[in-house]
């Protein structure tokens, strides 16, 4: 089926116009035919009246001659007069030898009918004639008028009507298409804008201001977006508030556990486990608050310095090399200098999150490759692991909070990748995922040009 509303509307308009105009044309043609027949019948009556005057007189032959020649060839007049025995008394020369077909009937009222016969002087052969026969005294008179002219008109009209029908329908369909396309243009704009909206729908859909249905729909959707945004922000605020509120009791719990443990020399197993669990909670709360701060725009870049991503990457790779070695993972860093301007502390955190993620999801004996370079005005660092990769539907979802289904070693909090992305976005960049074999995460930042020497 067709998926374009514009085309569907145009086709519908075409079909409707064709049927309506066709119906109207049929009516017009019928009226035309009817009108013409009436006119011809009147003339036949008239001629019958005239012939009545000369019937039975020597003037008959002369009248017939004159009358049949008076007419133009197209509406030729045919006349035939018989006596009571059916014998032809007089006739115009154009009447065929067999005479009129019904001209020997019994006495009755005058009769109108159509008559078709092969005309010797007609190129097309067949000729259609409107005929009137009537008894005038003891004579049987038959008069016919050729319909050739009428038919010519009729066919001409029919042809013109058909042509205009097609033209009207095509024009109608085209204008319908144009109007539909014009009215639906805001829909494409709305769709494009909506597609660009993130998981936190900030921004509004474009309105035409015309107040039409689409404009009203856009208004309703904007209202909906606003409410969703408010709700998302409310939930986030709630989470942040909860995280905030958790910190003091967590600190206190941790402090008391620690003091108990220290008092006993070394912590007992349950106390040590409890401390570790509290530490996990504290880490989680800290990450959540960090993400909250970044995403709410509070993490405005404070310090900006110019540094080389490659240098930073090398430093971090060296730092984490022991972790890779523990798991027999080959960890490589290569590429070219890529200067950026940002807060190195934050970018370092973002890259560490990507490296942590890669190391956790690479099997024993696998490989993690870090590439640095510039591409089209962006400084790029990509972290590529030899893990099992990501299915296409998860490439975006891994950046959602708490989304963690990759089943790597050591459970993450599901906040590392969202934090990396939020940091990159704070500095005008982004983090995206692809899965060419293993998973590949690319952090991009606006390039800052060459370092001043």
């Amino acid at each position, binding site marked *: 089926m067709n998926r374009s509303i514009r085309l569907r509307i145009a086709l519908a308009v075409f079909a409707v116009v064709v049927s309506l105009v066709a119906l109207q044309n049929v009516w017009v043609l019928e009226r035309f035919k009817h009108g013409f027949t009436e006119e011809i019948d009147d003339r036949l009556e008239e001629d019958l009246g005239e012939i009545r005057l000369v019937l039975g007189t020597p003037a008959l032959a002369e009248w017939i001659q004159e009358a049949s020649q008076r007419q133009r060839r197209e509406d030729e007049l045919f006349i035939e007069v018989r006596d009571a025995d059916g014998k032809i008394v007089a006739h115009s020369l154009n009447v065929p030898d067999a005479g009129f077909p019904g001209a020997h009937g019994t006495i009755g009222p005058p009769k109108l009918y159509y008559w078709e016969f092969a005309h010797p002087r007609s190129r097309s052969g067949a000729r259609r004639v409107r005929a009137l026969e009537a008894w005038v005294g003891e004579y049987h008179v038959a008069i016919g008028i050729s319909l050739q002219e009428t038919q010519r008109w009729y066919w001409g009209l029919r042809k013109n009507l058909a042509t205009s029908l097609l033209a009207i329908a095509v024009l109608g369909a085209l204008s319908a298409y144009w109007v539909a396309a014009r009215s639906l243009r805001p829909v494409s704009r709305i769709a494009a804008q909506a597609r660009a909206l993130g998981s936190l729908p900030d921004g509004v859909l474009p309105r035409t201001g015309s107040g039409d249905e689409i404009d009203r729909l856009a208004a309703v959707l904007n209202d909906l977006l606003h409410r969703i945004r408010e709700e998302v922000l409310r939930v986030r605020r709630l989470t942040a508030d909860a995280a905030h509120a958790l*910190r*003091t*009791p*967590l*600190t*206190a719990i*941790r*402090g*008391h*556990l*620690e*003091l108990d*443990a*220290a*008092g006993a020399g*070394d*912590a007992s197993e349950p*106390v*040590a*486990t*409890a*401390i*570790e669990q509290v*530490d996990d909670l*504290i*880490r989680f*709360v*800290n*990450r959540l*608050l*960090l993400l909250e*701060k970044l995403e709410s725009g509070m993490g405005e870049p*404070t310090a900006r310095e110019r540094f080389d991503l490659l240098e930073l990457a090398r430093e971090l790779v060296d*730092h*984490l090399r*022991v*972790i890779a070695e*523990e798991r027999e993972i080959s960890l490589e860093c290569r590429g070219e200098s890529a200067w950026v301007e940002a807060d190195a*502390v934050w970018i*370092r*955190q973002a890259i*560490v999150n990507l*490296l*942590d993620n890669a*190391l*956790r999801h690479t099997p024993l004996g696998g490989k993690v490759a870090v590439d640095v370079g510039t591409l089209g005005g962006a400084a790029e660092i990509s972290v590529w692991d030899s893990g099992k990769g990501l299915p296409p539907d998860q490439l975006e979802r891994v950046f959602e909070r708490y989304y963690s289904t990759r089943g790597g070693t*050591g459970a*993450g909090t599901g906040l*590392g990748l969202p934090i990396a992305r939020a940091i990159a976005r704070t500095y005008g960049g982004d983090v995206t995922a692809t899965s060419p074999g293993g998973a590949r995460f690319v952090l991009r930042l606006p390039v800052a040009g060459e370092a001043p020497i």
Partner: protein
Amino acid sequence: MRVLVVEDELRVRSFVERGLREAGFAVDSAVDGEDGLRLGLVNPYDAIVLDLMLPRRDGLSVLRELRSGGRATPVLVLSAREEIDDKVRGLDAGADDYLPKPFAFAELLARLRALLRRGTARPSLLEVGDLRVDLLARKAERAGQKLDLTQKEFALLEYLARHAGEVVTRTMISEHVWDMNFDSFSNVIDVYIRYLRRKIDEPFEKKLIHTRRGVGYMLSAAT
């Protein structure tokens, strides 16, 4: 040693007080800024632990008043982690160190001790049991046997030896030995501790590196 703790949160104050007392400090405490400032100006404390978010008078103001009142007492500021700005402002206002909340008590203790030690001469040779760490030659030996350490391993050992007998947390190690304070799942420190153990403790019967689970590590000759 006499320490003043200015903290309005009872839950935090209670364990800090208790912990410091157990560690052998004499502890006074104040629950708001005015009270803290009054005590700080009146008594000659060896150190002050100061929260930033306080009722009646905020921590920064207390700090400024103390300094303008001529008190050079070392001050350790406590504050919520996200107040990075406060860290800078806190140090400008005369704080000597800064500890983000939530914190481990061991870390508070270690930082406090570091503040109190400040200004005392640093020896160039550290000895822990039969382990000798020569900071000038950057060499270490145990029971007369030379230890073959990488740079990182030596730096870690140096830090542990400087704080011999005290528990140091992973955060402290990563800040001071690696100069990298970031949040990571990958525990690089544990790996280096393992490397260090292999060289320092494995060949010997007496173990010097102790793990305080949930807290950190300690280098100590005592058992």
